[in-house]
């Protein structure tokens, strides 16, 4: 039971880390899209 709980916690930790990385990447992507849109909208 204890070992299984450890396994569950380890898997939850891994999933949380991956989700964190994805969310971080998404924040960077939204920032980059915003800059690209602003650049695209600027008159030359």
């Amino acid at each position, binding site marked *: 039971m204890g070992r299984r709980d450890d396994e569950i916690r380890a898997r939850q930790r891994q999933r949380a880390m991956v989700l964190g990385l994805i969310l971080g990447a998404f924040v960077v992507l939204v920032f*980059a899209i915003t800059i*690209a849109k602003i650049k695209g909208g600027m008159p030359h």
Partner: protein
Amino acid sequence: MNTATTASPAMPAHWRDFLALTKPRVMTLVVFTGLCGMLAAPGHIDPVLGFTAILCIALGAGAAGALNQWYESDIDGKMRRTERRPLPAGRMGRETALQFGVGLASFSVILMGLAINLAAAAILTVSILFYVLIYTVWLKRRTPQNIVIGGAAGAFPPLIGWAAATGSVAPLPLLLFALVFLWTPPHFWALALFMRTDYSAAGVPMLPVVAGERTTRTQIGLYTIPMALAALAPWALGLSGMLYGVVAAVATAVFAVLAARVAMRTTGEADTMKPEKRLFAWSILYLFIVFGAVVVDKWVA
């Protein structure tokens, strides 16, 4: 007795199983054809927006793959090729797969609509719904024409890529759509010929199971003809240059020879199905070559 305190919680699915749910191998071809559709389009798209569009195509394809696996977990469990997928192997609950698929599909379409344009988002939506509802739910278990009509789902990415770059569609991406659409039957029926027992065991009415090997071989040969015409049409209609014409002609000729071999042969009991496997492998490489040629031709011109 309070069972809640003694019951062990279910093991959460591994993050790699979520990745497996998106069918990454299928996704590579989808991403490549979408990228080529985008790069072949006239004008210029900001690299960040281009990357975002391709990401949305990839996520949309992944979502469609996840929803496909959610719906087909019962038949996946009966086929050797798919029995180790997360759902039939019991590593993930069906509800989790459904939530993941719907969430990913919604995310990809919304991001495409907000960051790129509504035309690309609309075609992406149609492609996901087509794959899940028309192919997976409606056709796959009902008719041997499943992959003929369902093939349209995999043909949308070049249209989406083009629409992402231009906000509209044009004859060239429509021809690329036609090429993938007509390429799908010989590609999948070659696979179905050497995976026939798998499909038969799962009760999927693929053409070799329902109509037999002879009919399937003939159909592979017949579908290769319009596919070849669709491949050469961009050059014949002046939508692409000589470079594309030569590459497409050579690659299509190789495809036609391999398809003709499959179409004309008959097999015995312990046949290793080498010509069918060769045609299947070449058909994948073929799309990479032809779509790559569309882009290189545009750069050279």
